[in-house]
């Protein structure tokens, strides 16, 4: 449904989006994930023909964003980061206006306005001025506006930003409900949102594509590995950390061990291994070596961790190659 090839956007000096390529299948919900300023909004703006790409291209529903922008625009519903509302309009008047802009008219327009009001639960504020609506309602009117012409593709830029937890849940449910009829790309910097609503996730950072995978796969990746934090000390004080690391690495099932933090005598090591690798072994190994095992606790590994690994500065290269595979 959406195909993005080597999409690039360059502003005066910096590369906002750097040769991004991905595909989105019909009917999928795709989470577009990245820290603030990663290039999510810019990418979405290029998909919606708001910004022309510097190089590369994209097609939406088979139409090129540069060659046939009008055709693309007919098939896309777009909710920008701040819902594009006219404060002096009433809700149904606004939806009627947008419907007309998108090419609807007559009976059909009326029907669609009623339908999206119901669907997005804004029917009770139909005759209220948009400028007086609460943030939650504004967001829902924004969504209603995006689906008014029943587009094939929905592009939602941070649809839950600034909402309270209850509204966030409602909005997520609403988006999930829309998935059947529309292909949806939604951007966010909140991880649980992706876990809860999306099937597919595209992670970008600093304009570069870091990973694209299904949410299930990413979660498996998160669960497949386990890492423990081990604090090892010794009575006489001086303990060479490299020796400890070496010993830890010899434990069966451990794939990686490294010094994480060090405060004088208190060295904390991070030990990674296959899920369920023997903690007993680890404890025994430390004690048998004559060291003190001061602490042994699991380090939290979640999508969050993966996300940080992928987008953080620590080891982006390795992660990127994994992600691209």
């Amino acid at each position, binding site marked *: 449904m959406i195909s993005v090839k080597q999409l690039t956007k360059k502003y005066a000096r910096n590369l906002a989006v750097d040769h991004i390529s991905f595909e989105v299948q019909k009917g999928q919900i795709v989470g577009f994930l990245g820290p603030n300023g990663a290039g999510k909004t810019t990418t979405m703006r290029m998909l919606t023909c708001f*910004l*022309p790409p510097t190089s590369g291209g994209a097609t939406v529903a088979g139409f090129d964003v540069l060659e046939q922008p009008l055709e693309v625009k007919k098939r896309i519903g777009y909710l920008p980061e*701040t819902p*594009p509302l006219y404060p002096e309009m009433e809700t149904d008047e606004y939806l009627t206006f*947008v419907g007309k*802009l998108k090419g609807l008219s007559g009976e059909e327009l009326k029907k669609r306005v009623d339908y999206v009001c119901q669907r997005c639960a804004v029917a009770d504020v139909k005759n209220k001025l948009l400028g007086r609506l609460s943030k939650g309602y504004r967001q829902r009117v924004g969504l209603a506006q995006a689906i008014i012409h029943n587009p094939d593709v929905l592009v939602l830029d941070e649809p839950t930003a600034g909402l309270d937890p209850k509204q966030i849940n409602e909005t997520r449910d609403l988006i999930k409900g829309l998935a059947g009829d529309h292909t949806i790309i939604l951007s966010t910097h909140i991880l649980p949102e992706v876990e809860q609503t999306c099937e597919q996730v595209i992670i970008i950072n600093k304009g570069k594509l870091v990973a694209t995978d299904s949410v299930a796969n990413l979660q498996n990746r998160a669960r497949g590995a386990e890492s423990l934090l081990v604090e090892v000390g010794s009575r006489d004080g001086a303990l060479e950390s490299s020796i400890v690391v070496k010993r830890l690495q010899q434990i069966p099932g451990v794939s990686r061990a490294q010094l994480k933090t060090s405060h004088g005598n208190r060295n904390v090591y991070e030990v990674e291994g296959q899920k369920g690798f023997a903690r007993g072994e680890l404890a025994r190994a430390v004690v048998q070596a004559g060291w003190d095992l001061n602490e042994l606790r699991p380090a939290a590994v979640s999508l969050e961790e993966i996300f940080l690994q992928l987008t953080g500065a620590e080891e982006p290269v390795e992660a990127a190659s994994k992600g691209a595979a």
Partner: protein
Amino acid sequence: MRNIWIIWRKELRSYFVSPIAYLLLTMFALIFGFFFWNALGYFVMMGMESQMRGQPMPMNLNEEVIRPLLSNVSVIGLFFIPMITMRLFAEEKRSGTIELLVTSPIRDLEIIIGKWAAALTLYACMLLFTALNFAFLFKYGNPDWKPLAIGYLGLLLQAGGLLAIGTFISTLTKNQIIAGAATFGVCLLLWVLEWVSGYETAVWAQVLAYMSVITHFESFAKGVLDVKDAIFYLTVIFLGLFFTARSMESLRWRS
């Protein structure tokens, strides 16, 4: 065409649901009313004087009331036009609604013409108030209506040009005040350019004077439809809207 109509209606509506339209209409009606009252008072005084001398001079409503008043309207218009156009794009840019317009299946030019036409319509509404005043002249006197009609045509053409310039300036900023002030400056400059012809006859002075929007109105005020002047205004409209379109495009390349 349908899209222009949609945008036109939306713009006009937003003028009239906010106090802007009413404020402008009221102020304009007040100011013009004052001018009208003065012009009429002067006319009546002149009439009485000529009668007292015992040798009534031929007096002409068109020449002595309508013509100077139309010229006044064209200058008053300069002050009102920035207030009409400043919000057109600046507000959409600030509130982000420009994203809705630009990502809708509608051409930039349709947006621009719709907005400009709405601004021109509001200006025409303001002119309606002047027509109300002139209507009294027809009730109590008998001026010629044709020069008046040509005068109105000239006012609309002149305003069309200045509104197009204002629309263009409104695309350059998110700040309505800046858009308004800049438009006002340009309008004022386009008015006073003509003054150089008062003391200088060199080619550059003639060119400057030619660019003044006021000089081209003189023929219309007289009730003469001069094609050259009409073409001048049409050119200004065209250029204004053309630059608006360019600016909207570059907005997207830059932003």
